[in-house]
């Protein structure tokens, strides 16, 4: 079990430092500042005492000197000291060891051998290794931030797994800016021991995680990844950004099929068969993740678009058609929207409340759509006008959605200036996926439908 990786009762930082700029300092600081409530034990061969953020710590010369159980030991010492330090962790009975240090398998054959020895040491003691060559691990429900990335990770329902170190750290910062709430951030690095499949198994049953986003360059055991991903997808959505669309493997192939394959097409096949949604850009992946980690599953195919502008309404309709979403077209029922628009408005889907739409119009239309049993998903679009401050609209949407009990998917797109941006942030902070462009809202809703449909198909059996 990876329980100790996410909910450790105590954390030792081996290679801890009081010097700003050092990784051993950054990890200590993040642990403290993010509010980790378990015990923190700095370890450094130099011993003595350090003070970080006004808190004084005794520094142990070895993990073996710590007069307490250690669940997790984060190793940041240079590569050549890692085997010895890991051996001591084993003797101490440490459960899980994130190895931040780099200089192993990523360097070549020699490094791979050392890495394999580390895994053997860990196996001997029943320890698990995360990494090496990583930036650490975050688990927001435990207020655990054992990384040298940004501190203020926003808590939320999305688990983020990254094979890339630099990109992973950058994405942590990006999620803060973009108001994307995370349950976990896991840097997997060289995946010597713990890999994507192990983490997926943990997140499958983790009540704090509703969706998983993986940045992946490759997997070692493709079959196991598929098997696990397929099981997890039946419960929670998985989004993968798979980098490296090269044609490796195509050259040596003797058959026609081999020359057409390339590993990337095979990855795509594996993702399709295991319900994994493949995103091609970071933006797309997080757009989908907002919807997939926050919204309930749709109970039917009927989508209703509510807008104050014909232009974005048409753009959203185009996107919906491209994505194969079904716009609700029962005019008898759509007539209810006529109550919320001037006579020249259009209650045909996309429902155009017109440029005169104020807070009352939107409030009424959104409330009716949320309450209607045949309207299964809602996209609220707004072009910023002088009639209605987008922030006021955000408040209306948040209130109406909460009062309805959040039983159906709802996405929002607001096009406009600085107030629009603020409104989008407000919505996202409240777990309502909001975007600056209508197509992005529709595509995110479509990702939710894709996963939901895959899931329904694979539950029949």
């Amino acid at each position, binding site marked *: 079990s990876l329980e100790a990786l996410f909910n450790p009762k105590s954390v030792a930082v081996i290679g801890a430092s009081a010097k700003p700029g050092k990784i051993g300092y950054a990890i200590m600081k993040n642990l403290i500042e993010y509010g980790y409530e378990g015990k923190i034990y700095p370890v450094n061969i130099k011993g003595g005492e350090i003070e970080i953020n006004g808190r004084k710590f005794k520094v142990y010369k070895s993990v073996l000197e710590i007069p307490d159980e250690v669940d997790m030991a984060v190793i940041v010492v240079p590569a050549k000291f890692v085997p010895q330090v890991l051996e001591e962790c084993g003797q101490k009975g440490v459960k899980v060891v994130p190895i931040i240090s780099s200089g192993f398998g990523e360097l070549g054959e020699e490094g791979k051998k050392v890495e394999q020895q580390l895994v053997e040491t860990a196996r001997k003691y029943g320890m698990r290794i995360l990494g090496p060559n990583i930036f650490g691990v975050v688990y927001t429900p435990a207020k655990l931030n054992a990384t040298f990335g940004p501190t203020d990770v926003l808590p939320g329902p999305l688990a983020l797994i990254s094979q890339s170190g630099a990109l992973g750290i950058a994405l942590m910062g990006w999620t803060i800016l973009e108001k994307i709430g995370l349950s976990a951030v896991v840097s997997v690095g060289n995946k010597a021991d713990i890999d994507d499949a192990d983490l997926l198994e943990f997140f499958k049953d983790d009540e704090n995680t509703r969706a998983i986003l993986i940045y992946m360059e*490759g*997997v*070692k*055991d*493709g*079959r196991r990844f*598929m098997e696990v991903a397929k099981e997890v997808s039946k419960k929670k959505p998985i989004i993968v950004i798979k980098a490296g669309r090269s044609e490796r*493997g195509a050259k040596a*192939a*003797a*058959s*026609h*099929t*081999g020359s*057409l*394959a390339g*590993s990337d*097409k*095979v*990855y*795509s*096949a*594996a993702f*399709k*068969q295991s319900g994994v949604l493949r995103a091609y850009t970071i933006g797309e992946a997080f757009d989908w993740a907002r919807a997939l980690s926050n919204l309930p599953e749709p109970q039917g195919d009927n989508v209703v678009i509510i807008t104050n502008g014909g232009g974005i309404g048409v753009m959203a309709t185009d996107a919906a058609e491209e994505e194969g979403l079904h716009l609700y077209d029962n005019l008898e029922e759509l007539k209810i929207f006529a109550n919320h628009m001037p006579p020249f408005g259009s209650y045909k889907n996309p429902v155009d409340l017109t440029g005169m739409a104020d807070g009352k119009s939107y409030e009424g239309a959104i409330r009716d759509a949320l309450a209607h049993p045949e309207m299964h998903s809602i996209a609220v679009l707004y072009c910023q006008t002088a009639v209605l401050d987008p922030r006021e609209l955000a408040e209306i949407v948040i209130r109406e959605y909460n009062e309805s009990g959040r039983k159906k998917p709802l996405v929002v797109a607001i096009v406009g200036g600085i107030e629009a941006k603020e409104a989008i942030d407000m919505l996202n902070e409240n777990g309502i996926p909001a975007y600056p462009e209508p197509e992005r809202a529709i595509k995110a809703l479509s990702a939710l439908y894709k996963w939901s449909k895959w899931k329904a*198909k694979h539950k029949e059996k």
Partner: protein
Amino acid sequence: MKGEALKIIEEVLAQGRTAMVEYEAKQVLKAYGLPVPEEKLAKTLDEALKYAEEIGYPVAMKLMSPQILHKSDAKVVMLNIKSPEELKKKWEEIHENARKYRPDAEIFGVLIAPMLKPGREVIIGVTEDPQFGHAIMFGLGGIFVEILKDVTFRIIPITEKDARKMITEIKAYPILAGARGEEPADIEAIVDMLLKVSKLVDDLKDYIKEMDLNPVFVYRKGEGAVVVDARIILKG
């Protein structure tokens, strides 16, 4: 199924070869119930004449040699042979072409096959990926595969749902479904073939490295399909 196919594979391996000739590959496919033409391997001219008579003219001739896997490059495929006289002439020609192309070519015989009525051409293939193992490929033949690379893959084994999705998700699917007044192709026959290839490779994954069924002629709905040419590469 497996036993029969394995026997053919082991014979090929015993000869120190990993590339099966078309005739052998088709025997393996036949063992798994894939539709291959009623064709026979003639070792002598007399046999060739006899088989051609049995099959009925016109026939096709394809020379089988482990050294000549690209048969059209070597000009060892002769089509539309209408009479015993023509067959005799072509018998000489096909052997001469083989000798010219590869003087050291070992010749197993000449495959005498019926002339097949043309259908919509599809390709079914198998490749082995280092991370995921064997994957099956499907696409339309000709320019669709050569130029547009309009093909799709699934990891083996596949389900019937996978097979159906593979067929409908290629861009050229409307051609199979019946575009511009054409009658729909036999989609069920393709589904059946994809599932049989998946089963074959899953059973024999320790032996098979790559495979091409190219082309496969697919006929109109209800009229089936046939593997026109096939290649199987074994693991060394």
